[in-house]
C-alpha cells in the first residue's frame, strides 16, 4: 500500500499558497493519531493537471477571488467523479466575501450544487467524534471577522459520498502554524483535519 500524500491544489487565480503550514500540521496530526502510512512532506499539484488523480485528498484555500480555467473545471469534475475528495476552505474571516462568492459559483459550475452537511454525518465521527458538527475556529470566536459562526459545512455529493467539502470557517488560519507549537494547545485543533483525511481514504 502506498503512503498517503497530502496534496495542495495550485490554481491559476487568487492566492492558493496562503496557508503554507497547513499541510505540515495535518501530516503531523495524521502521523500522531493514526497508523496511516503518510509521506513527511506534502506536494503541490496544479489543479488543471491530471496529476490530481494521483492523490485521494486535495486541499484548496485562498483569500482572493477564484476563477477556474476550463481545464481546472474539467479537472475538478474528473477528480471528484473518480473518487477524489476535494476540501476547499475559505481563508477569509468574513461572510459572503469574494472568495466565498466566487468559489461557490465555481463549485456550482464544476461539480454541482452545494448542500448542507448534516451534523450527524459520518464525517464528524470518521475518527474523532464531533457531536456538535464541525468544530468552530478561534477566528470565528475572537472577532476577527464577521463575529458570526458558520455552523454548517457545505458539500457536493456523489451518491452518498462527499466528493467536495466546502468550509467558510477558516480552518486555513486555524491550522496554519508549525506543528511543533501544537504542544501549547490543551486540545489539538487539527483533529477535524484527521477526520477529513480518514473519510477521504475510507469512502
Amino acid at each position, binding site marked *: 500500500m502506498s503512503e498517503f500524500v497530502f496534496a495542495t491544489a495550485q490554481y491559476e487565480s487568487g492566492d492558493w499558497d496562503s496557508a503554507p503550514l497547513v499541510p505540515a500540521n495535518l501530516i503531523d496530526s495524521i502521523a500522531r493519531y493514526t497508523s496511516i502510512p503518510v*509521506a513527511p*512532506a506534502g506536494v503541490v499539484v496544479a489543479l488543471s493537471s491530471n496529476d490530481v488523480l494521483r492523490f485521494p485528498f486535495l486541499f484548496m484555500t485562498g483569500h482572493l477571488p477564484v476563477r477556474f480555467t476550463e481545464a481546472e473545471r474539467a479537472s475538478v469534475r474528473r477528480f471528484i467523479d473518480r473518487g477524489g475528495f476535494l476540501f476547499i476552505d475559505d481563508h477569509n474571516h468574513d461572510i459572503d466575501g469574494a472568495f466565498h462568492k466566487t468559489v461557490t459559483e465555481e463549485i456550482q459550475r464544476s461539480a454541482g450544487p452545494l448542500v448542507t452537511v448534516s451534523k450527524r454525518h459520518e464525517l464528524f465521527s470518521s475518527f474523532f467524534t464531533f457531536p456538535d458538527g464541525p468544530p468552530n475556529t478561534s477566528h470565528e470566536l475572537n472577532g476577527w471577522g464577521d463575529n458570526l459562526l458558520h455552523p454548517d459545512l457545505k458539500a457536493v455529493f456523489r451518491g452518498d459520498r462527499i466528493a467536495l467539502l466546502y468550509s467558510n470557517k477558516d480552518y486555513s488560519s486555524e491550522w496554519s502554524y508549525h506543528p511543533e507549537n501544537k504542544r501549547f494547545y490543551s486540545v489539538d485543533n487539527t483533529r477535524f483535519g484527521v477526520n477529513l483525511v480518514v473519510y477521504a481514504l475510507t469512502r
Partner: protein
Amino acid sequence: MRSRERVEATGRSLAAIALGKSLLLGTAAGATLAAVTWPLGVGRATVFVSLMLAVGIGWWTYRRARGTGFSVPNVALWIEERLPSSGWKLVTAVEDGAPEALEQSVAALDWSSVTRQATQKALATPAVALLAALGLLATSIVFAPAVSRVLATRLTPGARVPTETLDVTVEVILPGYARRRGESLRNPAVVRALVGSRLRLSTVGRDSLRLTVGDREVATSSWPVGPQAVALRLRSGETSRLIAIDPIPDSAPAVQLRNPPRDTVLAVAGGVFALGADVRDDLGIARAAFEYIVSSGSGETFTFTTGSIGARQLGGAQTGAITGTLSLATLNLKPGDFVHVRAVATDLRPDSAAARGASETRTIRIARAGEFDSVAVEAAAPPEEDKAVLSQRMLINLTEALVRRRRQLARTTLADESRTIARDQARLRKQVSDIVFARFGDDPTGEHFHGDGHQHEGQELRPALTPDELLQAAENATSAAAGKVLDFESDETPVVAVNRPLLEAYNFMWEAGRELDQGAPEKALPPMYRALDAIQRARAAERLYLRSRPPRAVVDVDRVRLQGREKGTPAAREPREASTGAARVALARFARVVVLARSDAAAAADSLLLLRIDLLPRLSPAQADAAASAATSLRAGRDAAADLAVLRRALEGVVASDSMSRWSGVR
C-alpha cells in the same frame, strides 16, 4: 328569358358538374393511394404523391368531361341530342340574327330534366368512389400497425413478429422562452425535448390511455420534461409500451472575452482598458455585461469591491457582442491591488441563476512599491531571528564607537574590544559563506539544486567549493566588479551572478575581520562599509534572511510516532482503474434484450429503452441514436442487427468509429 341566356346558364351548370366530377374522382384516387401506403409509414413523400395523383386524375377527368368546351352552340346541340321534342330548332334559335318566330317556338321547351339526369349520372359514381376511398383510408389508419406487421413479416424473411403496440402521438410543447414551435411525433421510441417542455400524448383507436412514470401515474394531457432521462409507460387495456424521454438541457451562454486578451501587471494605476466579449447561446441571450472585482489588501486583510460595466440587452439573439471601457483611475486603486474582469451573460430562461454563463477572468494587477527592483521569489518569512548574530550595520556602529574612543583607551583594551568585534564579524561572514556554500556547493536546500540529475547545456555539475576556493571566488568577484550593479556576464550562470554581491561582502568582511583582529578598527571600517554596501545590493537583488532561515514544512513522521528518524520521500498513489462492474451488468442486460427480441420484440424494445436511459451518460450521441433506432426497428418488426451491433460495441468498450473510414461500414 331568351333561349340563348337559358342555354348559357345550362352551360355553366355543365361546367360545374364536370368540375365536381373531376374533384370527386381525383380525391378518391388520392385517398385510395394514401390508404394503401399508410401502413408503410406516412411521410412527406407519401402525402406529396397522393396529392399529385389527385390533381392528375382530377385534371384528366375534367378535360375529358369538358370535351370541346361549354360554348352556347355546343350546349344547344347537347340539349337537342337529349331532347328530340325540340324539333331541332334550338341550335338555330340561339344563333345571332335568328327570327323572332323561331324564338317563340322554342320558348316553351324545358330541358331541366335533361340537366338533372346528367348531373346524377356524372356525380353518383365518383361520389361512391370517394366514399369508398375514405372508408378505406380510415380503415387503413386504424389497422395500420397490424397491417404493417403483416407486411413486414411477409416482405422481410426471418423478421420477428412484434406484438401489438399502441399507436401513439406525442406533441412536444416547448417552454415559452424558447420562442420556437414544438413538434408532433408519431410512435416515437425516444422523444428528445428541451427541459421544461410539456408533452401531450394521445392514441388512435383507443378509448383510454394511462401514463405512468415509475410507479406514479401522471396525466397524459400535459407531462413536464425534467432534467433526468426517464421512461414513460403507456397503457391501454392489456397493451403497453415505453417511450424514452431524453431531456435536452438548455446550455448556459458561452462567453468569450476578447479584450483584454491576457493578464497584466501595471506599474501605475491609471489608463483605460477596452473591453470586448462575444456571447452565444443555443436559444437566445437576454442580457450581457462585464463584471469586475477589485481586491485590495494583503496578508489576512482584504477588501473587495464589485461592479458592472457595459450591460446590454440582447433581446433573445443567439449571438452577440458587447464592448465597454474600464477606467482604472475611477477605481481608486493602490499598489498591490487586483482587478478581476470577466464577461457574463444570461439567457432567456426565467431561472436566471441557472442560465448564467461567464468568460475566463482576466487579472490586472497594480505592482507593489519596489516590486520591479527584485528578481527573487519571496519565500516565507523566517520564524524568528538568530539573535546571536549581529548585523553588519551594528558591527559598523560598534567599530565607529570604538574608533571615536580609541584615544581614551589603552592599547590592550582597544585590541581586546576590536577582537570582540572581529569575532562577531567572523560569525556574520560565516552566515554569508553558508548561503554561498549552499548555492555553489549544491546543497539540496539551496535555490538551484542539481541533485535531480538535470544539467545545463555546456555546463558540468559543480563540486562543492572548499573555503580556499570560496575565498578565491570572493576575491575575483571583488576585483572584477566591485561596486557594479547586478548584471549577468557572458560566461556566468545566473546563480554565480546573483551571488557576486555576497562574494564581495564575504571578501570585505574577511578583510575587515583581519584588521579588527590586529586591533586596527579604523582600517576595518572602509571594508566594513563596502561589505554593507554589497549586502544591500544582494538584498535588493533577492530576498535573503542572513540572520535566520525560512521554515521547512517537512514532518519527521517517525519522530512524531516515537519510532526514530527517517527522511521519507513523497510517494504518489497510482490512478484508480475505471470500475468494470457496471459495464458487466450492462452487457448482461443487453444479452437478455437480444434473447428477448426473438420471442417478444415489443418487450425487448422496452427493455432496450430502459437500458439506454441508464447508460445515457456513457453513450455517445451516435450510440444513443443507434439504441433508439434499434428499439424502433424491434417494435416495427424490422431488422435491428446493425444498430444492436453499434450498442454492443459501445458496451464492450470497442474503439468507436470516429477514427475509421466512413466506407468501413462500421458505426
